[in-house]
């Protein structure tokens, strides 16, 4: 529409700017001329700058060929009057009052459009899926992320029922008997958040954190719902990974027979495995948070704390050999300690892995003992063989001399001593050979109670036992063992004699038998009320010819050899109530059925 503007004030300039920016494009205004008497009016200046023709006389406006509309912006009633009078027929006139009105309307509409666009822009800028539903769960608005995720265009989505667009089901959740959270919000009127699992288009599980907020109309009634969905797949995956790795860690440490734990710098348990907790008859979780001092007897706790500190201070791996007595059992542990570091590399605690090497140690000692015995046996046989002929000579010459001297000759006593002591040598050598001779036991089914009884019958005749009280503590329910009854009697007799000698013939001997179901062994014990076995003598007690003040000779070594050949062992201890206790431990025979 070919248009001329009359009056080139500030309003004119704004209008021109607006039109040139593309405003009012619907009206297709083509400003062909701008007229004002004042040559320096802002509208005229602007028009000239933009190459729009200008004039100073109204007549020029009226003469413009093809003019379709005149816009009067002078604000002067007379000029407006004049224009109405002079416009050619068919040319429209918009005076400054109308123009003002039109301008205001234009402005308001533009504002509104801007605002709507901004809301959509905000929605579209959100990374979450956002959409708005009416009370019938029809989609009223969606954002760009919705379009991207659903594969529906904005136009396709609008008006769809929510479950058609999102749940991918024919029926709504309510129809399927499941409470739909949207209805829940409608009922309660409160915003709610939840995590929903859906199958994506590719069939993969997708996790969303869904938030549904109610929107209310002026009357305060809920007329719409806004749902936003935030993908939390990564978070769920992370959470699962953490749970999984936690589970693996627990499986690992709880399946281990070693004692595994972690403590903080104050000695408080952070982690403990099941094997360790069992030491205290507790569950691992009950022990976490407790300190070593709360769980162990003071002296052990002190030792553990000391070692823990060393590993933390020295910041390195240290191996310890530790001996703990817990609930009357002695544990020999090989413990690895190393500092627990955080992500920055700072020491925040200590980790320990302890292996129970009690049995290993015992076997090792038995092996050493067996080796020693075998070596001594060989040596003894060799020495005995070499020494026999010289002794034969000594005896022959000494007895010869003895025969030649008169009975009252002072030398005869000396010769007798030579003979006596040579015979003593002979006895020692023979004992040694008895010991060295590794007689294999002739095994049969043996009742250890019978062995004990037969030995008790024997010792009751011996002078050594006349001032000794004997107490029987024989188990009425003892499995048999496989063994040589005569050799076993010899063992028990040796232990009884040893006990009597340790007590110097006065005191009490308790002889007992019992079955230990744990390692399926039969145990025959001989306990005395003597001074006990000195600590330093423990390891050497079973060596041939090792003697303490009260005992001597080969008895214990022979016993040890016999029991060893029966697949058993002899245990020695000084019980709390005093004295010494020797225990013959033999494997029980399996009972049929």
């Amino acid at each position: 529409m070919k248009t001329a503007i009359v009056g080139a004030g500030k309003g004119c300039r704004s209008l021109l700017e607006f039109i040139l920016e593309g405003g009012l494009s619907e009206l297709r205004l083509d400003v062909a001329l701008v007229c004002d008497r004042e040559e320096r009016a802002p509208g005229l200046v602007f028009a000239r700058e933009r190459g729009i023709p200008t004039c100073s006389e109204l007549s020029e406006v009226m003469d413009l060929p093809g003019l379709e509309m005149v816009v009067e912006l002078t604000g002067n009633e007379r000029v407006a009057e004049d224009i109405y009078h002079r416009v050619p027929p068919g040319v429209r006139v918009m005076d400054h009052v109308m123009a003002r009105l039109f301008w205001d309307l234009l402005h308001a509409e533009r504002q509104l459009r801007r605002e709507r666009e901004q809301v959509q822009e905000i929605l579209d800028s959100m990374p979450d899926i956002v959409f708005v539903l009416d009370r019938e769960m029809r989609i009223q608005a969606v954002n760009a992320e919705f379009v991207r995720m659903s594969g529906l265009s904005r136009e396709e989505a609008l008006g769809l029922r929510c479950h058609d667009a999102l749940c991918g089901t024919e029926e709504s959740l309510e129809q399927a008997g499941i409470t739909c959270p949207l209805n829940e919000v409608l009922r309660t009127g409160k915003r709610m958040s939840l995590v929903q699992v859906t199958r994506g288009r590719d069939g993969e599980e997708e996790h969303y954190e869904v938030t549904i907020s109610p929107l209310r109309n002026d009357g305060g009634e809920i007329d719409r719902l806004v749902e936003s969905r935030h993908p939390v797949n990564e978070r769920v995956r992370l959470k699962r990974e953490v749970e999984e790795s936690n589970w693996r860690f627990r499986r690992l440490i709880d399946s281990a027979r070693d004692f595994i734990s972690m403590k903080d710098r104050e000695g408080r348990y952070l982690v403990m495995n099941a094997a360790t907790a069992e030491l205290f008859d507790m569950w691992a979780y009950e022990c976490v948070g407790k300190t070593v001092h709360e769980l162990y007897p003071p002296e052990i706790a002190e030792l553990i704390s000391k070692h823990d500190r060393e590993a933390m201070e020295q910041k390195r791996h240290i191996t310890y050999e530790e001996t703990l007595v817990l609930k009357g059992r002695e544990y020999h542990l090989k413990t690895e300690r190393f500092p627990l570091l955080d992500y920055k590399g700072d020491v925040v605690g200590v980790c320990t892995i302890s292996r129970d090497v009690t049995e290993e140690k015992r076997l090792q000692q038995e092996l050493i003992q067996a080796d020693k015995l075998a070596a001594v046996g060989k040596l003894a046989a060799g020495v005995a063989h070499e020494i026999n002929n010289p002794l034969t000579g000594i005896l022959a010459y000494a007895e010869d001399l003895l025969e030649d001297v008169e009975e009252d000759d002072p030398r005869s006593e000396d010769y007798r001593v030579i003979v006596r002591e040579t015979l003593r040598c002979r006895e020692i050598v023979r004992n040694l050979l008895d010991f060295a001779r590794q007689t294999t036991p002739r095994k049969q089914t043996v009742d250890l109670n019978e062995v004990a009884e037969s030995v008790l019958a024997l010792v009751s005749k011996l002078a050594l036992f006349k001032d000794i009280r004997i107490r029987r503590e024989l188990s009425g329910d003892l499995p048999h063992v496989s063994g040589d009854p005569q050799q076993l009697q010899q063992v028990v007799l040796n232990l009884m004699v040893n006990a009597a000698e340790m007590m110097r013939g006065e005191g009490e001997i308790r002889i007992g038998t019992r079955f230990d179901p744990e390692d399926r062994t039969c145990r025959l014990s001989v306990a005395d009320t003597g001074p006990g076995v000195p600590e330093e003598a423990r390891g050497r007690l079973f060596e041939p010819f090792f003697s303490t003040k009260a005992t001597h000779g080969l008895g214990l070594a022979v016993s040890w050899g016999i029991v060893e050949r029966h697949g058993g062992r002899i245990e020695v201890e000084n019980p709390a109530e005093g004295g010494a206790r020797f225990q013959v431990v033999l494997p029980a025979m399996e009972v049929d059925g």
Partner: protein
Amino acid sequence: MKDAPRVLVVDDEQVVLDSIRKHLRREGYEIRTVLSAAEALEILDAEGADIVITDLMMPGMDGLELLARIMEKGERIPVIMITGYATMRTALQALRRGAFDYVSTPFTRSELQGVVARGARPGAGGGVGVGGAPTRDVAGPESLHHLGGHCWVQEMPGGAARVGLEREFAFTLGDLDALELPAVDDVLEQGSVCVRFLARDGRSHTLWSPITGRVSAVNEKVRERPSLAVSDPYGEGWILELVPRDLAADLAGLAPEA
């Protein structure tokens, strides 16, 4: 008076030869000593001997082989083995193979004199038996296991094993004053001292245990009347009973090699 019995002593160690010579010097024997079995055989071939005392373990030909050579000759010479305590099982084998007896080193004067004196008696070496029959062929009841001319073992019902003297051993003991029997429940090792016999002539003689076991009974009749062991060695004169540890193994260990 007949000539002094000739004793041939064989040992690879001079001190043992000298010792034996000293022990026996007043016993009225004619003693020759040699350092090897080969020399001994030469002397036996050339001159013969009434008793041979030989070491069991010697370099070259050992005592068992010498014994075998002597047995091969068919001469009934009592052969007394000298053995260390450690090799008593071998000594028992020697008895089984025909040795007369053994002494274990180091031995006392009376131990050696006792056994040699028995060897010098008529009947030793199986030379003369009752009624002139060779004793070693008189074996008593069939169920007996014989330990050469030394003793016998009989399995009894109930698992015990009875031990008694062989006639050769019994007849060379001479008149007995007493027996030193072990106590019931004592454990005897095969080849160790089982019973000591105290003879009227003041000598003592040793019966070696033929098997290992625990003494379950002793024959009180023999204790009271020691001569019973000599007069009825396979019957009333049995000595003791043992509960054997492993009778079969003990007897197998004594069996002569095939």
